[in-house]
């Protein structure tokens, strides 16, 4: 649908395409849905009775340990997010945390988050790391906690009711002056993982840093993301969920929809606005309006997943 996408203007155009297609929502609205619009014919998975409707939740950038002026109580807003999740009906099947669980790997923060998330009443959380979770020790603490027995350094795959989920790690290869990347090992693994799947299989990909070029000047891109996405193009429904930029952006490219999520801790500026990325302070009464969680609903028989963002206000 759109070609190479770099910078704000193309993102906006991508979003306008998205709006035209869904006929709903505003980019910065409190609730912005991307509902299904086309019904697929019966697929192999559905024929086997796999595709029953369900929902799951994406939570991102909890930054536990952050005490900056942008939010002196990041734990409090995280707990507000937990309350939102707990109130969801129907109950989500699982949670996905798209990284920056901790702020600068503060001691005890991983424990705080995994304990607190039990308060959602949801049994399982799937994690991918953000750079804040791995920078101090090259990922040792994170990987020993969340990725033991996995196929690689934190990347993972699972299937749920006919939907194929892939968690990717793009924060372990940071090098001076370079962008974050997946690396050849992980990309080869992804290719092998996807190869046996029918193109009608709905796929959800989640990773911390956006896999598409949101704003490369601020590092809001994955250097080899396009290569990974190349293996996803043949699928009829691909939903990509990212964090890192602490704001909602959407883009549609062919059958792939890209979504970045809000943080539960603090907002960041729109791409290119101001001197650089980082926490921005908003009036205290507006803070919870720019933080949030995301519910993703899969409805059997529809090829698109509905993505509903809810603020903590």
């Amino acid at each position, binding site marked *: 649908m759109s070609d190479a996408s770099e910078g704000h203007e193309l993102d906006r155009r991508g979003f306008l395409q998205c709006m035209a297609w869904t006929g709903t929502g505003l980019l910065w609205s409190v609730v912005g849905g991307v509902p299904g619009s086309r019904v697929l014919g019966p697929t192999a998975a559905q024929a086997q009775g796999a595709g029953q409707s369900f929902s799951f939740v994406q939570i991102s950038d909890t930054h536990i340990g952050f005490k*900056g002026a*942008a939010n002196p109580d990041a734990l409090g807003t995280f707990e507000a997010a937990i309350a939102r999740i707990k109130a969801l009906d129907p109950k989500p099947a699982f949670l996905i945390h798209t990284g920056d669980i901790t702020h*600068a790997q503060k001691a005890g923060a991983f424990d705080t988050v995994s304990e607190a998330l039990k308060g959602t009443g949801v049994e399982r959380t799937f994690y991918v790391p953000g*750079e*804040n979770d791995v*920078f101090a020790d090259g990922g040792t603490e994170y990987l020993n906690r969340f990725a033991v027995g996995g196929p690689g350094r934190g990347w993972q795959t699972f299937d749920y009711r006919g939907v194929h989920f892939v968690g990717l790690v793009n924060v372990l290869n940071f090098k*001076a002056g*370079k962008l974050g990347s997946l690396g050849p090992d992980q990309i080869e693994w992804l290719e092998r993982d996807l190869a046996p799947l029918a193109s009608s299989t709905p796929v959800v990909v989640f990773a911390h840093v956006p896999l598409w070029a949101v704003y490369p000047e601020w590092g809001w891109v994955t250097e080899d993301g396009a290569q990974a996405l190349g293996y996803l193009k043949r699928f009829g429904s691909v939903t990509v969920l990212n964090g890192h930029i602490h704001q909602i952006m959407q883009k549609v490219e062919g059958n792939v929809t890209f979504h970045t999520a809000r943080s539960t801790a603090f907002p960041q500026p729109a791409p290119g606005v101001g*001197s*650089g990325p980082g926490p921005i302070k908003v009036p205290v009464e507006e803070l919870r309006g720019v933080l949030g969680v995301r519910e993703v609903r899969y409805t059997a028989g529809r090829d698109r997943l509905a993505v509903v963002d809810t603020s903590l206000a």
Partner: protein
Amino acid sequence: MMALLLAAPVAAPAQMESTQVEIRGHGFSTPALTVKAGTTVTWINHDDDAHTVTSTANAFRSPGLDTDETFSFTFTQPGTYEYFCTLHPLMTGKVVVTPERSGT
């Protein structure tokens, strides 16, 4: 933690000099700094984001620096020391260390 990193295994130079690099807006205030051997460089983080000061050649490595936190390193050996922030790798800088007695 910083004290350990400061313990350089070389005899202390006759005169100690020091200078500061500020971290602000995801950048280093003096991305290319030239100092004489024996100089202590202190980085101070003015951002709300955490940053690190990490040598690309493992000469020094700060912990995560929160707002207003500092990291110091004494450069005893002449050479060029490139560094970056391991949280935001597009943030890069270098310190060029000249011999202590050059020009004297």
